[in-house]
């Protein structure tokens, strides 16, 4: 049963100036006391998320809102398992798929078809499962003969179409979206939106981070508002 529960999770980024990153100074700090040691204790830390608690259960469609730098993307990364919270307890059960960077890992010298496999593998699919999906993905992307060309010959719109087609080809249990995905020209955009809606429909839990509150109202049943890394309101 897919669910996410967080209890007082904190995420802090240490900010190092070059002297903190230098091995020489780390050695000196260890061997000397006083002044140098004080310098190390005044290290700047950015609190990206602090003391955040929530429960997301099956069927929840959560809208994540907040200003720039309020921690939305960081929270999505925490949910996808990239950052492990420094403190607090986080439990995520269910297969997570995050549509954060659609074209990550694509090889510009390889053909469209090769990139479908490459992206699929990066999403954790076994190569055989991807082979079975290739024709469906190819058809959806409407790129036709271009699929046997290196993707460096694609326009940026075509590239996004391909990336979108692969990334949305598997239905996850927990779907994480950083902003609504809008790709392609007018005709393709409608088709892409339908596909995204289907994906959301079939997922058990969806978390959408967006600045567009009308979008959130339209697709989400719950809302988590972040302010400076804290939950300002949960509904």
């Amino acid at each position, binding site marked *: 049963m897919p669910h996410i529960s967080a209890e007082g999770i904190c995420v802090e*980024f240490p900010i190092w100036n070059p002297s903190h990153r*230098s*091995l020489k100074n780390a050695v000196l700090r260890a061997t000397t006391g006083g002044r140098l040691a004080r310098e190390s204790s005044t290290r700047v830390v950015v609190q990206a998320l602090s003391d955040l608690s929530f429960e997301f259960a099956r069927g929840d469609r959560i809208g994540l809102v907040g200003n720039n730098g309020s921690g939305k993307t960081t929270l999505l990364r925490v949910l996808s398992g990239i950052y492990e919270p420094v403190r607090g307890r986080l439990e995520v059960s269910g297969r997570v798929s995050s549509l*954060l960077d659609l074209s*990550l890992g694509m090889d510009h*010298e390889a053909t469209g078809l090769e990139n479908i496999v490459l992206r699929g593998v*990066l999403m954790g699919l076994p190569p055989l499962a991807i082979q079975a999906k290739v024709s469906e993905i190819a058809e959806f992307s409407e790129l036709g003969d271009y699929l046997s060309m290196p993707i460096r010959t694609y326009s940026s719109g075509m590239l996004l179409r391909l990336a979108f087609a692969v990334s949305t080809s598997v239905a996850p249990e927990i779907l994480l979206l950083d902003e609504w995905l809008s790709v392609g020209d007018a005709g393709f955009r409608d088709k892409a939106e339908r596909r995204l809606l289907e994906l959301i429909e079939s997922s058990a839990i969806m978390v959408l981070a967006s600045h567009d509150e009308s979008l959130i109202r339209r697709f989400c049943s719950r809302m988590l508002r972040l302010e400076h890394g804290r939950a300002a309101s949960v509904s």
Partner: protein
Amino acid sequence: MSARLQRAVRDLIDGVRAYPIWGRLGWQDIRQRYRRSLLGPFWITISAAAMIGGIGMLYSQLLHQQTDQYIPFLAVGLLVWFLFAALINDACLAFIGAEQFIKQVKLPLTVHVWRLVWRNLIIFGHNILILVPVFVYYHRSIDERALFSVAALLLVAIDGFMAGIVLGLVCARFRDVPPIVSNLVQLGFFLTPVMYQTQALGNQEWIAQVNPFFHFLQIVRAPLLGLEVPLDSWAFALGASLVCLLVTLGLFSRYRARIAYWV
């Protein structure tokens, strides 16, 4: 087993299982380097061949060695050294270089380390082709002892992997370390009997004996040159690997979760 260690071991297992990922990314690294060139990755072979030919001719004169003895010795030694040096230098960038991946998609972190090991094994595989003409020309043959060289290369790959975790992690935290390491590797090249025979060290042979590079080089090189399998070097290499394993497990379980924050 502590929870931290458990998660580190989980990462190690998942990393091996993710071979479709690092297998592809490793090849992709090679292809991108030689994209749209006629010979593609075989440029690796050609550059190494040019180097061995050049150095071989020059140094066999300088060191008063017979070319038919010296060039096969040099060829095997240099190729193995190239592998060591590349493994160690790339190890420093194991995580820093994979920043994009680490921050955007949840993968076992060891995937990035296997990727660099695999990439360097592919390069080594291209390089080793040089040995065919060299061995044929100088009427060398290899026998069943070469299997020990294969086993030794396997050990080198595993140690390269562990070095990738340790150095990758340290370098992600301390950005001064990569240049330090590359200087040490450079120095290591001159201290290791790659271009000269161990005997040339005379009374200073201990320099080779305490040098881990030397022992790892020996276990690969000696059987290929028709010499006995060097048991003392095997013992040293296995011991060093065990120490390496403990350090790797310790550091990786302690700092694995911090890597995403550091890169």
